[in-house]
């Protein structure tokens, strides 16, 4: 499972970085989204991967999942969601103001 998660994070980061370097705003927005997914998954895995253990200390269970990364990732998801919405609107605004969707506003 560790290898699978690591590959997923790596793959999403790779695709995210590739898309970020594109010249049009839409791929850049997608790249940012992918990068934030990769970050969320990475943060989530930082509490170590456990199966079927609760996030609270319960007498019936000896193992427990670390609740803090779950709280952190929730915050990161909310912030990432808001930022994605903002950057989509900004990209649309730049498209309207500059007349094209190039990140430098140049029509090439």
């Amino acid at each position: 499972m560790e290898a699978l998660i690591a590959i997923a994070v790596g793959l999403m980061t790779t695709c995210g970085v590739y898309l970020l370097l594109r010249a049009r705003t839409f791929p850049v927005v997608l790249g940012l989204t992918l990068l934030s997914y990769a970050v969320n998954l990475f943060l989530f895995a930082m509490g170590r991967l456990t199966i079927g253990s609760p996030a609270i200390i319960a007498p019936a269970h000896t193992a427990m999942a670390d609740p803090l990364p779950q709280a952190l990732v929730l915050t990161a998801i909310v912030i990432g969601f808001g930022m994605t919405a903002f950057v989509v609107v900004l990209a649309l605004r730049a498209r309207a103001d500059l007349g094209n969707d190039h990140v430098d506003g140049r029509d090439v």
Partner: protein
Amino acid sequence: MSVLSDHIVIAPLLVPLLAGILLVLMRGSATLLRRNLSMLGVQALFAVSLMLLLQVLDGQLLVYQLGAWPAPFGIVLVADRLSAMMVLLTSVLAFLVMLHAIHGSDRKGRQFHVLFQFQLFGLNGAFLTGDLFNLFVFFEVLLIASYGLLLHGGGAGRSRAGLHYVVINLVGSALFLFAVGTLYGVLGTLNMADLSLRIVALPENDRELVRAGGLLLMLVFALKAALAPLHLWLPSAYASAGPAAAALFAIMTKVGAYAIVRVYTLVLAPGAEGLAELVPSLLLGLGLVTIVVGTVGVLASRGLALMVAYLVLVSSGTLLSAFGIGGVEAMTAGLYYLLHSTLVAAALFLLTDNVADTRGRFRDRLEPGPLLPAANLLGGLFLVLAVAVVGLPPLSGFIGKVLILQAGLTNAWMPWILAVVLITSLLTLTAVVRAGSTLFFKTESKAGAAKLPDMAFLVPVIVFAVLIMGLVIYAGPIYDFVRATAEQLADPASYIEAVLGDAPGSRRP
């Protein structure tokens, strides 16, 4: 009063937050009312910031546990001399920028005051927080407000610069989270005091991960502080922002510098072998590169706003080189320079707007324009600020640079520091003098008439100039204060003691 002094540490966060929320609710009310409320918020912020500074002046560390949960389990706010100084600097800046904004530039777009208050909330939070994740959250708060402020007023130039600024900062935020995740995964805590203790006690085979996380964190802060080669977002963003936004952004690169200083002195310097030596040499080397790159930009600028943006870059490089030299002397010099450069940059952005307004269609372009009716006043202010920003005696830039050079004399890089700082000072002097003579002396007969400057817009600039002179006149007491601040930073044990105290769980094997 005792309620206020009990909660003084969180007051600089609550005041702009409440003012911001009230302003959101008052969307439909009269402009005058909203302006007054916003101004009142900024004044209240100044008052509580001053009280906070007075409380920590004797070296006491104030720790505020939210919900009374003890650190490292709960969230803490920590106010030491450095935090209180930054909060007060922010509030002074906010007050003067607000003084400018309420005379009209807040009407060029919507919700200026809401964004402004939330920006202050984010800034103060970043200066006061005691753990890394909240540092991230407050960075996001101040960034999203700054996106709004940067785009305030609209226009194609702002959209283009804004897009770059937003995308680079979102990438920075993603890297920040990667760094935070790595540190948490290895160390199991995000409280900075606790991190510091646990790094020291870390087994050898986990150290590489912590080094990677720490360096990634420094990279993110360097991006905010515009350290070369991560500076490319700064000039166009600052030059295209409105005057009030640009002046407030003078503190933004300092947030990055503050975070570098805080995390380095508290977390990395005591425990992270390898990083403890690597970070200062990187800061010094890249800081000097930033100064050179910024100076080239200053020389090449064809507009005053862009030139001021590059001057901000130069000052940011100078500041980070000072921190990179290392030691209490250099930290003292850096902190003094930080106060000076923030005030000067903000004043220059506001003055640029005044000059651009009076010159009509020539705006701030550095070419001969109309004869300015108030050239003596505008030119005089420009002269004062130029002397300060370049670092000529007798103003504060000179004192700051002398202190930095003095601290650099014992450094192994001494020839480089002296050569870069002195030669670039001469070059920026040339560029600034050329800009001043073009704007105020060379006139074009067919350029038409210039407007009289609006005195209301000049008042904040004059107050800034007075403050800059105050930095010289009271250089003694201010030096003593920043020196005490630097000494406090050099002693992370007292910070850790104050935050963790004898809390259960703070003394781990």
